């Protein structure tokens, strides 16, 4: 199977964990893909402040960077997250939707290197930075 039509792919609502978190498609540009994580009380990690838990932000960035790999390869193929590092630059502001922007930095035969940011107002003021790697399961190592 080759060719990855992101618009057709994103026309479906996410089910499973992404659906439970409320993650939706937000947009794309030159070399990046964005997903949105709307704020809901169910995602709060700190009830005193109302700040979102960090887990949903990892899920958001795992998916945004994963889709960026499919776009970069122009192919929808199975891949496994090897590792993902998230730096929490600042807390997400309670009430705001978090946008996750994923980029594929480099493709090798069996590994994709990705990075991304999460922001809740402008990309110039990110709340998290991520770096990760994916194992391309259809590649011949």
């Amino acid at each position, binding site marked *: 199977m080759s060719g990855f039509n992101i618009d057709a792919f994103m026309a479906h609502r996410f*089910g*499973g*964990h*992404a659906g*439970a*978190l409320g993650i939706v498609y937000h947009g794309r540009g030159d070399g990046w893909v964005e997903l949105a994580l709307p704020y809901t*009380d*169910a*995602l*709060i*990690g*700190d*009830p005193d402040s109302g700040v*979102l*838990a*960090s*887990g*949903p932000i*990892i*899920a*958001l960035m*795992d*998916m945004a960077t994963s889709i960026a790999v499919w776009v970069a390869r122009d192919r929808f193929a*199975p891949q*496994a*997250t*090897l*590792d*993902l*590092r*998230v*730096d*929490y630059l600042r*807390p997400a502001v309670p009430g705001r939707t978090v946008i996750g922007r994923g980029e594929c930095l480099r493709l090798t035969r069996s590994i994709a290197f990705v990075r991304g940011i999460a922001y809740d107002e402008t990309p110039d003021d990110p709340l998290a930075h991520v770096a990760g790697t994916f194992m391309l399961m259809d590649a011949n190592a």
Partner: protein
Amino acid sequence: MTPPTGLPPYAELLGISLTPRDGAAPTLVLPFRDAVLGRPGFLHGGAIAGLLEVAAIVSLRYALAEEGGGRIKPVNVTVDFMRGGRDKPTHAEGIVTRLGTRIANVEAVAWQDDRAKPIASARMNYLIVRD
């Protein structure tokens, strides 16, 4: 001071429950259900990462409570995924490697059938604001 046992709303969304232990922080159990599903038949990596972060925070709050309490601010997390999470319960445990005055280094491990065969692990750094 007794350790806080309440879990945040996000942990409830995942369906996490705590298993108390004598003299140590509780371990966590994540049941397999639609809310944590990734590709068909497998846990979502984000749900596994969320479980690891909750496990880390539970163990850190337990350790902090023994020293008078404090607030926890996440600095970063690195998650390594070793195996796919299958359609069965997942267990997790946090381990406080070092609890300093201002910084805590915490690890967390998630496994299914065998503790010696983890499906994922994580390392976290936290900033501590002492009460």
